[in-house]
């Protein structure tokens, strides 16, 4: 069986400034004060990230916290100052230019905050662009591009130019372009941050729909915690270039590792993160008024449990693992510990 970890990044640093190279030679792990004294910006500091196949890994943090820099280190768009990155068993940092081009052509895709569409190409040509670069002939690449354009719901607009589309539509093109080569690893750098809230929500649903079909390995960046908990399997919270905690959304809310993470998660509606599994109690009842999945959030089962005449059973892959009664749900909803 192949390794479960697709991207393994250890102790990655990215420093900017005149002394960026030398300072790490003098000191393995300079603290923020030392960096500041040396006039160096620590955009990414000692980042350790393992991304598993098929998961949605969200990197979260305020603007300027180093998310974009980290993800660009992972794709080697920027050269990390130090550290090691293994991608699918390959040492990414020692890959030659030619190897890197090959990896990016076949195995990686990226979606950008400002869409980064080529203004002189139509929707179809933009989507087919990665194939064009690989030298795929026109007929094949346009046929493939058409499939992906349909997948993201833009059929009928193949011949439009980017400037004739709304922001949401432009980002659909960006998504289609990054998917056209069927990448194994899909990077999205704040893909929905430039969109209006309503559109953003719609795009999140669309994104989840796509992921259900495609099952990619995803590194998703956002500064919006609500977006993170809606989409993530696991979240990495960044602050000033360092990763504060990596955990599932629920874990993050229930057991914040640092003061900063706690502050961040304080105002999050717990019902949105806590899952049935966490609040269920051992099976005691004989009869149940319904059933819920153990991964469902409290918010999504609240109505059902409340309306039920008795406790509901909790299933994991069709097997009963526990039960939930009204009281447990109400405790979460009112914020009782």
């Amino acid at each position, binding site marked *: 069986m192949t390794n479960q970890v697709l991207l393994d990044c250890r102790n990655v640093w990215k420093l900017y400034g005149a002394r960026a190279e030398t300072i790490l030679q003098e000191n393995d792990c300079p603290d923020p004060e030392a960096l500041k004294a040396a006039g160096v910006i620590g955009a990414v500091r000692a980042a350790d990230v393992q991304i598993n196949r098929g998961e949605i890994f969200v990197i979260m943090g305020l603007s300027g916290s180093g998310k974009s820099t980290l993800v660009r280190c992972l794709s080697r768009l920027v050269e990390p100052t130090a550290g090691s990155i293994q991608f699918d068993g390959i040492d990414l940092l020692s890959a030659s230019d030619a190897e890197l081009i090959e990896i990016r052509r076949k195995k990686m895709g*990226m979606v950008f905050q400002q869409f*980064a569409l080529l203004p002189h190409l139509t929707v179809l040509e933009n989507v087919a662009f990665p194939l064009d670069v690989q030298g795929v002939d026109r007929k094949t690449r346009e046929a493939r591009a058409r499939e992906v354009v349909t997948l993201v719901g833009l059929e009928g607009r193949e011949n439009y130019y980017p400037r004739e589309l709304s922001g949401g539509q432009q980002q659909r093109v960006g998504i289609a372009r990054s998917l056209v080569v069927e990448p194994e690893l899909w990077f999205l750098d704040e893909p929905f941050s430039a969109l209006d809230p309503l559109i953003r929500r719609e795009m999140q649903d669309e994104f989840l729909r796509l992921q259900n079909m495609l099952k990619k390995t995803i590194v998703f960046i956002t500064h919006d915690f609500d977006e993170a908990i809606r989409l993530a399997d696991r979240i990495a919270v960044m602050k000033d270039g360092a990763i504060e905690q990596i955990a599932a959304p629920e874990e993050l809310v229930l057991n914040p590792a640092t003061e900063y993470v706690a502050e961040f998660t304080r105002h999050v509606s717990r019902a949105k993160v806590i899952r049935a599994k966490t609040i269920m109690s051992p099976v005691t009842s004989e009869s149940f008024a319904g059933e819920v999945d153990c991964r469902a959030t409290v918010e999504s089962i609240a109505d059902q449990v409340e309306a039920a005449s008795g406790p509901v059973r909790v299933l994991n892959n069709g097997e009963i693992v526990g039960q939930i009664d009204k009281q447990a749900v109400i405790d979460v909803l009112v914020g009782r510990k």
Partner: protein
Amino acid sequence: MRRWITWSTGFWVGLFAVTWLLSSYSFQLYKALDARWIVRFPKAYELPTESRISALLDWLVDSAHFVFFTFRDLTRAIAALIEIPYQFLRNLLIEGFQSGLGAEAVQIAPSLSWIAVIGVAVLIAHFARDLSLGALTGVCFLYLAVFGQWASAMVTMASVLIAVPIGAVGGLLLGIAAYRSPLFEKLLRPFLDLMQTVPVFAYLVPVLILFGFGPVAALVATVIYAMPPMVRVTIVALKAVPEEIKEAGRMVGCTRHQMMWKVLVPSASPALMVGVNQVIMLTLNMVIIASMIGAGGLGFDVLASLRRLDIGGGIEAGLAIVVMAIALDRVSQAFASRGVHEHRSGSYLKRHPWTSTSFAIIVGTLLLGQFIPAVQTYPKDLTITTGPFWTASIEWINVNFFDAFEAIKLVVLQGLLLPVKKFFTGIPWAWGIIATGLFAWKLAGWRMGLMAMLFMAFISASGLWGKTMVTIYLCGVSVFLASLIGIPLGIWAAERPRAGRVILGLMDTLQTLPSFVYLIPVVMLFRVGDFSAMIAVVLYALAPAVRYAAFGLREVPAHLIEAGRMAGCTPRQILFRIKLPLATPHLLLGLNQTIMLALSMLVITALVGTRDLGQEVYIALTKANAGQGIVAGLCVAFIAIIADRVVHAAADGQRRRLGL
């Protein structure tokens, strides 16, 4: 007690006072001390730069040997490379194709008919924007035919069609190289600076010596002149491509080559088209000037008329240049801002309507032209000549307003030009070097001060001090007047949108006119001399003063104006207390542009008899003395560089003080 003399004002007053005293009494000083070196740089110490450069050029032409070929061979090869397509275009546009030579020549194919040329021009303009631009272009070209300028205009057109692609593609490639290699950019930059400040006449001379009199030399000079802005625009445009688009290109796995030609250049193409527009306008400007070294065409007609004092002929040819400039400018701008491309499907004819229509017109008129000569060439009988009309009008103006014009001229000469001239030409060279150094040091730091002193020392040591002072005086007065007229116009344009549209539109048109054209009416009305030169320079250099003033005022942040209004300022106070102070950096940049344009125009006004560096270059051109031309050209470039750096430094300082 208030200190009313700060150190700064004291410095300026002192500098001026000393300069003025020395300027007024330098002659007496020289007599009293019997020291002629005070007013004239000693001949014995003059630098032999001129003869060195001439000798170098002679050596290049006569005996320079590279391993496999001589320098001569190289220039001949370049000449041939340009000559062939140029001759082809001339045949295509005007002369027709012949086989054999001289009397035995047999016509194989005629040139494009005038209808075909106009038709294709209209189609290109329509394709670039819309039918109305097509109509404008059609009218412009029709003008050339109806008013009998067709043959000359097509010769000029052939030059433009050769020089523009070379200039644009060459500039693009150099720009790409500079974008890729910062080291190359660093090496290129001083050359670009010099190319844009050395007056055009100055490199006409070496080009003339290397390539001989004729259209090829003119084309080479034109390309040298028109290329630098394209290089700059390319560098800036490529750098301005959003970082994310570059990253997107890398993420899909572009190679270096794909990155440049599939991502960067196409994304930057609107900005690059702005560069191409500049190349076109500069080419047109230069093709006219280059008629002095054999370009022929409209420029030659203007020059010949000016020499003959044939007023009507000069104006006719001049207007033809204007008309052509307007058409080329608008069409190339339309390409720069061209929006959506349509996607067509269907047969070849349906997919390429423009190409097929053009082709149909060309073939159709070619066939028809065999039977009806009027289709092939515009019939001579139907041309209208406005020459006599213009001659008569100017004569009428001169007869009726001669006294008024003379009076104005006299007042300006006596009240402004002569005193300023006396002041500048009186300054002894030694003090001039020091004063320039102090001036530059105060405004732009000690490095610039030192550089300015070196430049001025070079000028003195070249024996060109006097002519340089005349140049500075003429430039100074013209820039002063241009600002005096231009800045209020700019303020007006900014404050009143409707007037603004008219004024700025007019300035756009003024800027599209080749510099040569300005000389025509000026000479007609005021004849030759400093006054005429000044008027031409003021007209030519007016546009940037207006534009930058209008732009600067409009850029003032709205919240500051609102704050002023809330504090109860009257519109007048808002203008003088808020807008103008905040716009000073822009005004200074406008001043910078005005100075640059004034200097470039001054050289051309040598044709109307000034006694400055321009004249020196012009003399060098007529004597084909490369050394003399280049040294005088360098002197102009040095003045331009000093002015440029100092004004930029002043603008930066002002911006810092305002916290912008």
